[in-house]
Structure formats: structure tokens, C-alpha cells
């Protein structure tokens, strides 16, 4: 179970990790400046296992992998959104940051609510309201990368080859 930190539509990668703070690969630095201006309380208050919730087009903008890395560095359990921008989604899957698309969960949950998420089944339970939701199923190939824990693990499990 974790607390929901909820943001709005079109949260771009400049908001997730501003360009002037991503001149590093240091996880502690990236964690500190995650959503630094869009939601300043987030990086100060987030606890391991908490949930980040977004609206439409979460992660739009640049290809910077620092964005999902900064979220992962805060030990967020999963990002749930109404929709994700393509590059962010792919980056998150690649580095092992769980991402789920669930319109109903976003529409029926508020900042500060407690959420239980089963990453295997995609079932989401809002503990605060008692409502349950089912997230959209993953693309079969994406599901294999997620199951492996990221694309590096997926390739290593296939003898160093990227195969379908």
C-alpha cells in the first residue's frame, strides 16, 4: 500500500527533471530534483512504495531517461496515468519502472489516497474509497521486457541477443 502523489495532464520531462538539474547520472541528485517545480512537496515527502499518478500524456517532451530514473530513484512503486508519452513509457519499461494505464483509477482517485497495486494482475484497489480498478493489459513484447525486469535483463536472458 502506498500514498498517491497526483499530478495533472501533459507533465513533461522538463517538469519531471528540469534540464538544468539532469547534468548528472547520480540517483540521489536526480531524486532530489524530481518534479522540483511542478510538485515541490513530492521529493520531500515521497516514501518507498508510494504511487505517482498522472493524467493524459504523462512524460511528454524530451527523451531524457533521467525522468523515469528520477522517479525510480525515489523508490516509487508504479506510475499510473490515463496515457503516457511514447518515449517515456518505453524508457520506464526498459529501466524497470512499472507503468500502468488506467483511466478509471485516475478519475476516481485523489492525491493523498492510499492505493494497493498488484503489478502482475494489473489490479488496483483504492483503500481510501474501497473502489477497485483494472489497468489496461500490456503489449505481449512489452510484457516480456517487464517480466524480465527491464530490457538489459531481457537481452541477457537471450544470450545477449535482442530478439522478438
Amino acid at each position, binding site marked *: 500500500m502506498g500514498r498517491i502523489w497526483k499530478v495533472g495532464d*501533459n507533465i*513533461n520531462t*522538463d*517538469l519531471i527533471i*528540469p*534540464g*538544468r538539474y*539532469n*547534468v*548528472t*547520472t547520480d540517483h540521489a541528485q536526480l531524486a532530489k530534483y524530481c518534479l522540483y*517545480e*511542478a510538485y515541490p512537496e513530492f521529493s520531500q515527502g515521497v516514501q518507498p512504495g508510494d504511487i505517482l499518478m498522472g493524467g*493524459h*500524456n504523462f512524460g*511528454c*517532451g*524530451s*527523451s*531524457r*531517461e*533521467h525522468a*523515469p*530514473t528520477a522517479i525510480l530513484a525515489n523508490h516509487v512503486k508504479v506510475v499510473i496515468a490515463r*496515457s503516457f*508519452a*511514447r*518515449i517515456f513509457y*518505453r*524508457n520506464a519499461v*526498459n*529501466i524497470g519502472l512499472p507503468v500502468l494505464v488506467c483511466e478509471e483509477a485516475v478519475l476516481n482517485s485523489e492525491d493523498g489516497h492510499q492505493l494497493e497495486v498488484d503489478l502482475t494482475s494489473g489490479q488496483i484497489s483504492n483503500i481510501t474509497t474501497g473502489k477497485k480498478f483494472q489497468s489496461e493489459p500490456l*503489449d*505481449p*513484447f512489452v510484457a516480456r521486457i517487464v517480466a524480465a525486469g*527491464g*530490457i*538489459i535483463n531481457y*537481452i*541477457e536472458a537471450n*544470450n*545477449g*541477443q*535482442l*530478439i*522478438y
Partner: protein
Amino acid sequence: MGTLAEEIFSYRLGRPVVAGDTVVVDVDHVMSHDTTTPLAIKAFRKLTQQNNGRVFDQKRAHIVFDHIIPAATIQAATLHREVRDFAREQEIPILQEGICHQVMPEKGFVLPGSIIVGADSHSCTYGAFGAFGTGMGSTDIGVAYATGRSWFRVPETINVHITGELPPGVFAKDISLEIVRRLGVDGANYRALEYTGEVIENFSMSERMTFSNMAIEMGGKAGLIAADATTQAWLRGRTDKDYPLLRAHNPHYEQIIEIDVSHMKPLVACPPDVNIVHPAEEVEDIKIDQVFLGTCTNGRLDDLEIAANILRGRTISPDLRMVVIPASREIYLEAMRRGYLEIFAAAGASVGTPGCGPCIGRHFGVLAPGERAMTTMNRNFTGRMGDPTAEIYLGSPATVAATALTGHITDPRSVLFTENLV
């Protein structure tokens, strides 16, 4: 049979594929730049126990320094050193002569029908050459450096068909902003855009690149334009390789957007999203603190020429500062020969070394709290050029140059018509 995106993937795979298919393909070129390479190296290192720690092909792996060049801080210089060490070890040159999306085509790496992945979201710019260029994160690029391969879901395509006669004062950038206004900032998410029509056919490679560059501002995976005689002429002398001239055959487009440019006006995108677009003449009361001419969207020779014609013999408003950064060294040198750089310097502008400059807010013209910039950039996101309370407006090089003269957002037609420049 299919859209240009389907034709390119089918050609590269040697078998027909359609939108919705997930495929793994050998890519033609892989690119990363100074800020995305360090994370790509981490992914690459994890993978390369199996292939002796070498990139898949030294001639097809490219590292470009453009985001913070020359290094503005000790931190940036340290990051650069880390990447230089990697490039030396891998025996791949570091390209330090401009913005990656300008330098890659100039070097002849971007050929029609090829598939290119770059660790930068504006890698969709390569679509102007009929190449499937797309932006990815560092781990994907590290994987591609190691294996020479990447996975794709062949995208559905939105066709943007552009016709009509371009009015004076309206440029490729204005039409690009109109497309974003119509489609919205996620209207092309997961999809390829394919630009067609007489306006596109008559445009130069530089103007086509402006369209393809901004595909990602709608979430687009690629911004494709079929290669033609204009493409071939541009590539002459830059490559000796053969390439196919692929085009759509009986395509099924998910959506078709028709744009008649005949009655268009110069446009400006207002903060904080690219689809907040207004005619320049309606936002002229907005005072500007800095103008910026450059970037992978509009830092090419024709862009500089348009601005130089407006600024020739004039000085910029004392109420603002102007930054001009040619997109590449090739452009910089030609602009120097033609006297454009002298015009900018004499007008009072700071002319910078080729690269991304202040577009990502790290150096050479960052903004103070509450300041406003009128730029030729592709993004106006909050905090992108400096303080998060600063505002970024986007427009054509003509709009930026006209604004430089007055100190407030200015419809360039007022300057162009009174000066008889069109």
C-alpha cells in the same frame, strides 16, 4: 503496399509488415549526445560482456557534443570527459560541430529508407529525408550500440496534406505550429506523421526539416516526408551510397489533416504548451527580454538569411538582448562568408558557437525570474530556458527578427512589407 512508415520497415526487413506489428530490426545508425551518452554507456557496459565490449559498428555509432558545448560548468566538463574517454576506447570520433540533428544529415548518415535511432527526442528530424528517425532513451540507445538492433511497433500514420500558396511573411515554422494547434500536444502519440502536398514538395530540405523536427511536439514517433529530387540534390556530395526512393503505396491513414496555407498568418506558440497558438498580430503587446534565433528547428542558413535581411543595417531594441546560434559549423561558416554573422553582431546580437545554446537552459542566455523570450525553438515548456517563472514564445525566424527590432512580439509582415523585403 502501405504508408511510408510501413514501406520503410517492410524494405528494411525484406518482408511486408503493417501498423501494429512489433518487430526487431537492424538499425542503420545510432546517435547519442553529450547529456544522453553517459546513461547509454551504463546500459552498454551491462550488456557487452558477450561481445568484447565493442560497439556494433564504429562507422554507424555516433556521439555528438551539442547540448553544453563548450562546457559551461565543471560538472558538464566532467561528464564530457567521461564520454570522451568512452569514445576514445571505442575508437569512434566525437562530432563537435553543431546540433546532432543538423550534423547527422550533413555527414551523409541520414539516407532515405534508413532507420536511425537517437537518444534525443528530436531525432524525428531525419524523417525529412524519408528516413525513419525516432528518439529513444539512453538504455535503448545503449542496447543499439551493443547489438545494432532495436525493437519497434510499426506505427499507424496520420497524413498531413498541405496545399495552397504560401503568403509572404508565413514560413514553414508557422505551418508547423498550425499543425500542433490542430492535433494537440499528444494528437500523434505513438503515431507517425506523413507530410504530403504541393507545399511540402516545393519546400527546401531545411524547411522540410522544420516540419519533421516538430513531429514529437504532438507525440509523433516519426515525421516522414518521401524523398524526391530535392532530397537527392541535397545529398549529392554528402554520400556515395545508393538508397531507395520509397513512397506510400495505397496507404491506409488513420487520419488525414488538410491544411490550405493560402490565408495563413504568422503564428506564435504561447507558454507553457506548443499547441497554445495565436496569430502574431494578436499578441503584439507582449514585451520580450530576449530573442533567440537558432536550434534544430530553425538554425539553418535560410533561417539566418531571413533574419539577416530584416536586421541588415538596423540595431536591436535596447530593451532586449539577442542570441544567434547557427545549427552547425557548416552553416556558421557559410553565414560568415555571406555576411550574416556580421549583420547580427552589428545589430547587437551575441553570436554563439554551433550547438543547442539556451534551448535547454544550461548556458549562453538563460532567463531570469519573470522574463520572456521570443525564440525559434520547438518547445516552450516551463523552466526550459532558465527560471521556471520565465516564459517562452515560439515563432518563425522572421517573427523573432522583427521582435528583436521592437522589443515586443511583432508580426514580421509589418517589417517585411514596409522594407520591401518580400
